[in-house]
């Protein structure tokens, strides 16, 4: 007869000295872990609440400008350098590691309309109200740092500039879209469609030959550098201010519009917006994508910044401060961690992209706990209590009342449309999807049609 009684050696289960770590034994048998689902739910609830407790996104404010900051540009090779231009013609170069200004250049007389950085990171180009295009060096310590490398005086006023992501080509926009070469002092190509002025221009980071511009006649025009005429045009109900390309999807761009919305388009299908992003209370002035291509940040005239997911229509985060006035320009840093906003009150603010994230290098256990909590929040995101807590944001009273009014207007218009449909012959009042509602028309440029006979 063999008998074995369970007996454990305590030395196997207890640590030898105080300096050792405790011994941990695991057994994944579900009988030893009852109440899996309720415990996970409680942990998710705690994680959501803690996220709200630790949500402190504001990091620093960069002071120095003496007029509102109207444009910003990221250095394409370094993560810590930013160039900003203000309405009194000053361009400042900032280092974000020390949060200081390392160079202040009296660049233009009048507004600085646009700044852009060359892809190799050696020069940046600025365009201003004094009809000049100036090339500068990015190195703040060189002898030439205080004077432009090159100045081009132009006949017309330019309102925007952007550099090609690979070649030494840049484009400016004003009355027409001009394509320049770095060495030339005359534009190489000129694109024109219609008679209205072009507000902004943006090159595609993936399909590098494509660029898109916003025109004052409420349209967004698509260009291909390999052709001599613009490719396509979409006309919305109100004017778009800025367009940003998705750095991960070659054919998606987002336009920041005056009607408080942002529209994401696929260039292959311009008659139907891929997504309509609503949440702002006033005109959206700038938009910039995260390097992951999954989110973007938008700054608006209503003194707030919102972060939207690409495939969703509502914002996941809103940043505002009493001190921050109209936000003219926003940028998402290339390490996906920070957001910069330049606004009317002469400051550039540095924010965290994820408000509750702990900065710096986390210990492996910290990282594991953070990953676990993030996954739990995602798993239980649709539960009413957790959704309510994670969506809750304090928003200034002006924005709150405007959004409330917009909601009532939208509800009443929907109700009226339903009533109209209910009291008309079935089929006479069609359902127009939201994504097509705001688009007036699109137009493809044919070679035969003369440029004078504009289609719209």
């Amino acid at each position: 007869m063999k008998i074995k009684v369970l007996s454990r050696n305590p030395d196997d289960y207890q640590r030898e000295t105080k300096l050792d770590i405790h011994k941990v034994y695991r057994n994944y048998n579900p009988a030893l872990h009852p109440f899996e689902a309720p415990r996970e739910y409680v942990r998710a609830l705690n994680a959501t609440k803690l996220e709200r407790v630790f949500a402190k996104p504001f990091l620093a404010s960069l002071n120095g400008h003496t007029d509102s900051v109207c444009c910003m540009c990221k250095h394409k090779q370094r993560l810590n350098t930013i160039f900003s231009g203000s309405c009194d013609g000053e361009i400042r170069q900032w280092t974000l590691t020390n949060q200081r200004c390392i160079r202040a250049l009296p660049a233009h007389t009048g507004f600085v309309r646009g700044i852009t950085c060359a892809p190799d990171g050696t020069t940046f180009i600025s365009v201003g109200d004094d009809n000049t295009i100036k090339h500068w060096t990015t190195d703040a310590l060189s002898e030439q740092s205080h004077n432009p490398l090159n100045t081009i005086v132009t006949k017309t006023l330019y309102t925007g500039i952007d550099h090609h992501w690979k070649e030494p080509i840049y484009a400016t926009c004003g009355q027409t879209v001009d394509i320049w070469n770095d060495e030339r002092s005359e534009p190489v190509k000129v694109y024109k469609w219609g008679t209205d002025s072009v507000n902004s221009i943006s090159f595609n980071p993936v399909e590098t030959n494509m660029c898109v511009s916003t025109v004052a006649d409420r349209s967004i025009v698509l260009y291909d550098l390999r052709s001599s005429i613009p490719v396509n045009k979409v006309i919305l109900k109100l004017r778009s201010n800025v367009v940003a390309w998705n750095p991960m999807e070659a054919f998606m761009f987002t336009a920041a519009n005056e009607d408080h919305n942002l529209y994401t388009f696929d260039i292959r299908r311009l008659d139907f917006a891929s997504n309509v992003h609503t949440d702002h209370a006033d005109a959206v002035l700038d938009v910039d994508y995260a390097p992951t291509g999954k989110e973007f940040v938008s700054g608006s005239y209503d003194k707030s910044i919102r972060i939207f997911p690409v495939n969703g229509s509502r914002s996941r985060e809103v940043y505002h401060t009493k001190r921050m006035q109209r936000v003219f320009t926003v940028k998402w840093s290339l390490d996906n961690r920070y957001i910069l906003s330049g606004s009317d009150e002469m400051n550039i603010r540095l924010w965290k992209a994820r408000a509750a994230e702990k900065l710096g290098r986390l210990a492996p256990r910290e990282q594991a706990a953070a990953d676990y909590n993030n996954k739990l929040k995602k798993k239980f995101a649709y539960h009413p209590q957790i959704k309510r807590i994670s969506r809750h944001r304090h928003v200034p009273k002006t924005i709150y009342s405007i959004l409330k009014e917009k909601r009532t207007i939208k509800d009443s218009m929907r109700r009226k449309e339903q009533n109209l449909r209910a009291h008309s012959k079935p089929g006479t009042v069609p359902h127009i999807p939201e994504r097509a509602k705001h688009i007036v028309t699109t137009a493809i440029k044919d070679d035969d049609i003369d440029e004078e006979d504009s289609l719209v």
Partner: protein
Amino acid sequence: MAGRYYEKRKLSSEIKKNEDEDGLSVSEVAQPEDPFKGSAPIPEERKSLYKRGKEFPVDGIKNKKLKGFLRNTKKRDKAAVNQAARYELLLTEEPGYIETEEGEATWEIKQREIADAADITSASKYFELRLDQFGPYSVDYTRNGRHLLIGGRRGHVAAFDWMAKKPMCEMNVMEAVNDVKWLHTENMFAVAQHRWTYIYDNQGIELHCLKRLDQTLKLDFLPYHFLLLAANARGFLQYLDISQGQIVSTINTKCGRLEVLCQNPANAVVLLGHYNGTVTMWSPNQKKPLVKMLSHKTALRSIAVDQTGNYLATSAQDRKLKIFDVRTFKSLHTWSVPAGASHLKFSQRGFLGASFQNVVEIYNNPCIQPPTNPYLTHKLKFPASDLDFCPYEDVLGVGCADGFVSLLVPGAGEPNYDSFESNPYRSKKQRKEWEVRALLEKIQPDMISLDPFQIARVDMATAEQLQKDKEERLGFKQESPKFEPRFKNKGRSKSGNVEKRKRKVRNEELRKKIRSEAEKNNANEAAESQMEANVITKPLEPKSALNRFKKKTK
């Protein structure tokens, strides 16, 4: 530079013959074939232990993104199940056993023999405390099996570390003690005394006197909800949250004296046994029982639910022991016993301990097949007054009229514990950390229901269903939205006037509904009467005896 943000992976066609998948060159000499290709197979019964729920069919979904997402999650779930099943290799301890030769029977083995055959530490786990002055003893072990609490009917209460034989406190509360129970750690315990229930420190200091839990006969503790249960002599069931010190719910069960109590450890539902043979299940959220089950035709003596929450063992005055499936409420096995078992308890590995007067019998896995013979038996001098299996040890503690005896039951305890759940070898600091974490993860009592996984499921009670219920209740469809009267100036919007206006609209709607329904009914009636008019009725013929010879027309 812009462009690709990732390195392009090599296609399988691009991998040269002489290179394997990682781009390392493989020698051209032929490698011997691996006879056991791939990873080791895992037996299905082991995998089934770690599976949760049925597989969701992915084929019927049309949305491509959703389909891809669900496929990915399925793959990950399978990998998780495999990994958990494989982890069993790393478990260090094996459960106890008794292997008998031919002619020997396990139930004839005495405790003395087991103690002699086992090693010295295990032999020390078989001991007897002769305490014949203070009456039959109630027994409770802490959740990690380290500390033992005994309470004699005449007021003797003692707490000690039974493995190291170190006493923690010993006192006489000078009152009758009905039941004793450890709270979440070995720092506090509750004693159900004759009048009220008291909570003591492990040094014997009285911390609280709970006057609302009066005449308590049985105590129980829900560890994940931090709820202390008290079953009353007058039929009240009370839940006390010990982290906040508030009574969560008091239920008047209206079932008389509550002497038979048991908790289902898998879903925190409380089972009570009654004099008419019914078993009722209670949750703190409802005043009525969740389930009422007739298990025997005579008064129940004791009930027990196993660790997994699948099986219920009941024993009554009719000298039968039954095993039920708790989820389907079906009776699985029944067998006769010499008397109604006065106490029943399940161990962690499914052993059932039963006490019949002064004999304690232990059955080996009675839920899977009905036992013909017990696994072990032990004879006491006096009838047993309480039974408790020690978690994570092969020990059964029995309280009787002349003290306490600790019996060895090879194979009863779970050999491998999980340090994050309960650790028998924890230090003071580990215990403090565990306590804080457990309090943070405390489950609210309103989540207690028959199915603990309900919270992770999709809520099928959609708005339409709720709307349907509302319709049934009110008798008409409340389609129109809430009417909010416009604000009028010059005092015309006083609350009384506003209410008048609201009432007018409401009555008008009701009148409209009734009118439309009346019209519908009239239309139906008219249609029916028309139908009746269309039907040609045959005139009745006088009955005669020769009717049966007439040809029947179809």
